[in-house]
């Protein structure tokens, strides 16, 4: 029983990271319909700029702020320069996708060239182990869970309570109509990229504190950003959030019986199971299929 509780706590903390990855990518995809593979690059940029700012002598908090800023700027640059150009040229989905892959590996390797391939860690987080009975966890787990929860809550608040947030939902809901009532969709695409990048930065920051940053985290991040969105159902941000937690729990509780190296496999099984049993995703409210 204690073990199960322990695994649940571990699962929720990792699930919080997946939650952030899922909603950040899911928001961008819902608004812009761009398969933003370079989201992994944003993740790496955020992680390494946090490290960079700390090396410059900033405190952990300031490094976090710096990493968020860097991620937002990067995300907006990719949209504003690359995707916008391709969309103007009527590029197909494949073209956009390949350009995004190109961006991911270019950025990753530029960073690797500048920083080297060793694991970069962030110092200064006062890790404290909290023990309740036999269950032990640390305050970083709490911070992860709280960050994800608060950010998700704020995002929902933003989307439902503010003017620009509602405009974003309008673009998601009916892009043609948004144009008709005079919403400049290009601006909102940029906004979606800014927000999505803003949300992914804390995930990168926390992962860097917990296990350190390496270059190939970008691929890992992009996989765990897609999976919650597909499992939760394309178009549903709460779905993506919940799916993120579910993946985290499944992986963690799976360790009970399976060696921890096979975690990716557990997520994959969940993914395939959902694809077979409910192709629209757990909470997908629309089937996007080729229109006849």
């Amino acid at each position, binding site marked *: 029983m204690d073990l199960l509780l322990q695994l649940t706590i571990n699962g929720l903390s990792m699930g919080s990271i997946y939650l952030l990855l899922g909603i950040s990518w899911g928001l961008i995809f819902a608004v812009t319909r761009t398969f933003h593979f370079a989201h992994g690059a944003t993740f790496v940029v955020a992680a390494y700029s946090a490290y960079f700012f700390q090396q410059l002598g900033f405190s952990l908090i300031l490094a976090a702020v710096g990493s968020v800023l860097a991620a937002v700027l990067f995300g907006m640059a990719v949209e504003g320069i690359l995707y916008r150009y391709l969309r103007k040229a009527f590029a197909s989905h494949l073209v956009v996708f390949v350009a995004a892959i190109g961006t991911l590996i270019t950025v990753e390797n530029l960073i690797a060239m500048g920083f080297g391939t060793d694991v970069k860690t962030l110092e200064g987080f006062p890790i404290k182990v909290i023990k309740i009975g036999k269950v032990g966890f640390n305050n970083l787990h709490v911070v992860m869970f709280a960050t994800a929860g608060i950010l998700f809550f704020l995002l929902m608040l933003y989307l439902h309570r503010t*003017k620009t947030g*509602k*405009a974003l*939902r*309008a673009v*998601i*809901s*009916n892009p*043609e*109509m*948004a*144009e*008709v*009532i*005079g*919403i*400049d969709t290009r601006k909102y695409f940029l906004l979606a990229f800014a927000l999505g990048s803003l949300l992914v930065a804390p995930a990168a920051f926390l992962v860097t504190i917990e296990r350190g940053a390496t270059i190939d985290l970008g691929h890992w991040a992009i996989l765990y950003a897609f999976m919650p969105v597909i499992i939760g159902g394309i178009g549903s941000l709460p779905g993506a959030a919940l799916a993120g937690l579910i993946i985290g729990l499944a992986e963690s509780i799976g360790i009970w019986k399976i060696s921890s190296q096979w975690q990716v496999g557990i997520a994959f099984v969940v993914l395939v199971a959902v694809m077979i049993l409910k192709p629209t995703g757990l909470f997908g409210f629309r089937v996007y299929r080729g229109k006849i």
Partner: protein
Amino acid sequence: MILEVKNLVGGYQNKRVLHGLSFSMGDGEVVGTIGHNGAGKTTLLKSLFGLLPPWEGQILFRSHDITGRKPDSNVKEGIAYMPQGQGLFPDLTVMENLEISCFGLDRKTLKKRSQQVFELFPILEERKRQRAGTLSGGEQRMMSVGLTLMHEPTLMFLDEPSLGLAPRIVQLVMENIIEINRRFKNSILLVEQNFEQVKRVAGKIIVIKLGQIVFSGILDPALDKRELWKYF
């Protein structure tokens, strides 16, 4: 003249739909456009509103050339467009739909304008907090018409407001359109298949066939429906 269209040619991709249309609309006029599907009515509205770039010709709004101008500028200048089908945001509430549609205006104006819409369509006020996608077909159409009013347009393009509605509801929506025209003194270009309703609402009529205007002028109230088949 609020709108003058000169020799408009347009269409999609390589599909030429409009073969040189010319007509004009006076202030406060309601003009009905009829013609069978594929005749080019929707293409005409989209080209006028800037959703489709016209290939040739000129569009003058209050003597200003607005040919090919983007929708967002048109909206600000007081031109509104209600697309065919679902002209609203199904995942937003009724109130949010209204808010979004007068984007860029302050709270007071929003309140005033949404009050205007609620006066016209009291049912929408009752459903204020409901998701627009869950409204009935008639309510959704009223919502769409309401959204076009949020910028107090002087020129409105309405694409088949009666489409897919029960006869009773069609009556209602059309009365609303008459009321809008009476109250705001704006000009309305109406695309409709429902000829009886066009007769009730419009003073002038344009008949489009195969992308060309085959008749335009004052609507003869004695015109019988059965004679219309020749235009279809």
